């Protein structure tokens, strides 16, 4: 009886010892690891405006949410095609699963399409589509943007009025899409508006300078292909002391542009959230890498005016 009791106590103490040792052993080896699922490379056209910063922010937040690694690069501006080329090459040489590009030159994308295929990297475009090769695109429908702007100006300006279209880099898909669809829509509407297209407008100063000149030529409406250009047009109107004589239509849901609509200095703003484009781009790529399909993803856009801005906001 005593021997059995002693055995039981010894067994209990032994178990206690094992538990303590294993407990302290666990403490030694505690490891917490967070593996990212995919690695995505991004080469934007620039990061020099609220629109591009929004895209960057949307991509970075989506990457964090989706637990993917994001390597994001961008050249100095939208015209730095050679810089972008080096960056795309470098990213394709690194260990990435997918690459998102906003091409500075939409008409020369074949080389990186081939390289991506060679490296077995999934390729997407965001904000700006490729014009020479079929690459999945995430962004707003730029043809729809051109149509919306044309319809607005056609509706709000008298017959025969002179209007201008300020566009950015000539080699970029969104510029070409917007110009083409803008003109096509006016033709469709049998509009008698007289359009002057000015390309290669690089930003606020260019837009300000060009608008001043165009106002001197008697334009009464203008479609600026970025909010920065639109605000340049507003500044030109104000510098010339014209009190809202110019009907300004622009694009990009950036804060100062929205405030300009609220103030009435911009008549219509076609919405394009850079953040939403960036976020959707990363989510679409992740979805594809998880086994989804390769399709274009269009983010809806609408026209923001002084009448509906409070409802839509």
């Amino acid at each position: 009886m005593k021997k059995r009791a002693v055995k039981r106590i010894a067994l209990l103490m032994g178990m206690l010892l094992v538990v303590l040792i294993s407990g302290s052993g666990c403490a030694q080896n505690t490891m917490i690891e967070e593996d990212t699922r995919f690695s995505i490379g991004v080469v934007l056209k620039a990061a020099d405006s609220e629109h591009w910063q929004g895209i960057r922010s949307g991509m970075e937040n989506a990457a964090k949410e989706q637990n993917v690694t994001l390597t994001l690069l961008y050249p100095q501006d939208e015209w730095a095609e050679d810089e972008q080329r080096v960056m795309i090459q470098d990213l394709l040489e690194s260990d990435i699963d997918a690459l998102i590009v906003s091409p500075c030159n939409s008409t020369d994308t074949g080389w990186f399409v081939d390289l991506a295929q060679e490296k077995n990297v999934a390729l997407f475009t965001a904000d700006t589509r490729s014009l020479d090769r079929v690459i999945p695109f995430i962004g707003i429908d730029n043809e729809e943007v051109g149509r919306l702007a044309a319809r607005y100006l056609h509706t709000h300006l008298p017959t025969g009025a002179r209007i201008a279209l300020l566009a950015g880099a000539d080699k970029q898909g969104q510029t070409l899409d917007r110009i083409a669809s803008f003109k096509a829509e006016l033709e469709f509407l049998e509009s008698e508006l007289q359009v002057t297209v000015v390309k290669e407008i690089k930003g606020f100063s260019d837009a300000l300078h060009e608008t001043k000149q165009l106002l001197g030529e008697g334009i009464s409406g203008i479609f600026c292909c970025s909010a920065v250009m639109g605000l340049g047009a507003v500044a030109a109107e104000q510098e010339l002391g014209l009190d809202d004589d110019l009907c300004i239509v622009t694009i990009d849901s950036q804060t100062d542009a929205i405030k300009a609509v609220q103030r009435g200095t911009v008549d219509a703003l076609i919405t394009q959230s850079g953040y939403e484009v960036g976020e959707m781009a990363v989510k679409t790529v992740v979805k594809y890498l998880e086994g989804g399909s390769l399709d274009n993803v269009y983010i809806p856009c609408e026209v923001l005016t002084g009448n509906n801005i409070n409802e839509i906001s």
Partner: protein
Amino acid sequence: MTFRLRIMLSILLVTISGLSVFFFFTYYVATDQVGVNYAKSLKGSMQIRMDQIDGDMREVYQKTVALSVQPELSQVIQDYSEDSDRNADDVIRISEYLRQQNDSPDLVDALFLYITKTEQVICSQEYRDIIELQNSSKQPFTTSGGIGLQPWVLSDMSGNEMRMIYLYTKPVYSETGEHIGTIGLSISERAMYFKLLDSKSNTEEYFLLDGAGQICSAGQGVELETPISELIDISWNTSQIAVGIGQYNGKKSVCAMVESSFSGFTLLCISEHAELVRDLKQTQWLYTLVLLAVIILAVVLADKISGTLNKPLKNLMYAMDRVGSGDFGIRTAAVREDEFFQLNNRFNGMVTQIDGLISQVIDEQRHARQAELNALQYQIKPHFMYNTLNSIKYMAFMQGNESLGKQLASFIELLEASLNKGSDFSTLEFEVRLIEDYVSLQMYRYMGCFMMEYDITDDANACYVPRFLLQPLVENSILHGMDTKRNDNVISISAYVEEGILHIEAKDNGKGMSEEQKNRILHQQGDTSRQFNGIGVYNTVERLRLFYGKKMHVEMQTEMGIGTRYIIELPASQEAEGAG
């Protein structure tokens, strides 16, 4: 070891081991948790540091790319390469040009321009505008494709082994696509360390590791280009963020690691675990004190609890001892309705039952003794009478009184039957013959004022019944039932077998009995002082009960002026052995 002692030891063992486990675990888990929580919070700040490092690296990379595609730079290289009279002034001019291109001198340490044709490196730093490349330093400039997103990690190209730089290089091409030079932008390791890695804390130490796991930036005293595996005993997976506990300088350390997604660098932070849990360790004595206090309390409580638990057991043991010594009157009592209560109840019930059984046994023994005495008495009296009567019978025959001789012969036969010590059972036929002998005697006495009727089937005659079953009943009818003033007294005996049951009926048409008489006959033993009173109705019934138990049925019906009837039902058996 007594039960109480075992309870006490069990309570103490459970309490002490439980508390020990609790305190050990609390302490270990707490210290471990402190380390892990610290590492978790640390990784947030480390991610910010890593993002800053990546940001700086990205900026320098992008500047390098931007410069490499600048047509102006290409022109500068071509002019210098094609100048047959190039001299130191030209170098100084290019160095000045490079300085002008550095718009972030706080970030970019120096710009290097490698001229392919002359195999010279012109530096933006004025004091060393021309650098003669050592073999190991040539590769970054001669590699035509650059190195992608990751910088070269090099000792300073001027040969100063004390300095380390991170260098991004990109080839510069002419309009015809010829590799005419390489532009390189460097970040100083020291600048990076003091800007982003110097924790200014004694508890944290930061290391920047290159893709191969070698230290490429660390505080003073750590030799650069040393594999980190030589410093810390922990195997890291190449996950982006990891925290853990490992051994550094032989001490338990909390480690957090963040890997860059851009440059391929890894930021590692090591903190001495002991420093983190120093406050916790100071509370160790408090744990010990509490443990001791609880153990003392446990001893006191164990004593009380074991005493309380042991008390009913002790009472029960006392009661058992008393019962063992023959005191069946003792009973135990329990206050609470628990297992001891049930045990006490069962013990009390058991004692009561044993007490009853013992009383029953004593009664039975007393009855048996009385029966034995009675039997002996019955044996003695008939023997004496038997011998005497035999003498008288022969005297009667000798004197020619045959009538008296026959009477005596019947009586002797009856007496002989009663003295027979053989089986307890005889056939019903034999019992009837005894009745006939008995009745012939009684006829003589009662002057033939009654008559007997028998109606017994053959199968009933063959059945075995307890001896002297009928005689007491007939005797009772003659003694108590017969009206001697009448001559039509009839005592009839009938018997038959039906469905394995032997039905016997003995009845008379005499005076009958009152309830008082009936009770006396059924519940009192026969009076042995009287001659030939038989064994008595009571004894007959008791014998039947002993032999057959619940398998027999005896009924006595009597009514004053009508008569008395006995009904007996027994299992029919034609074998003496199986009759009972």
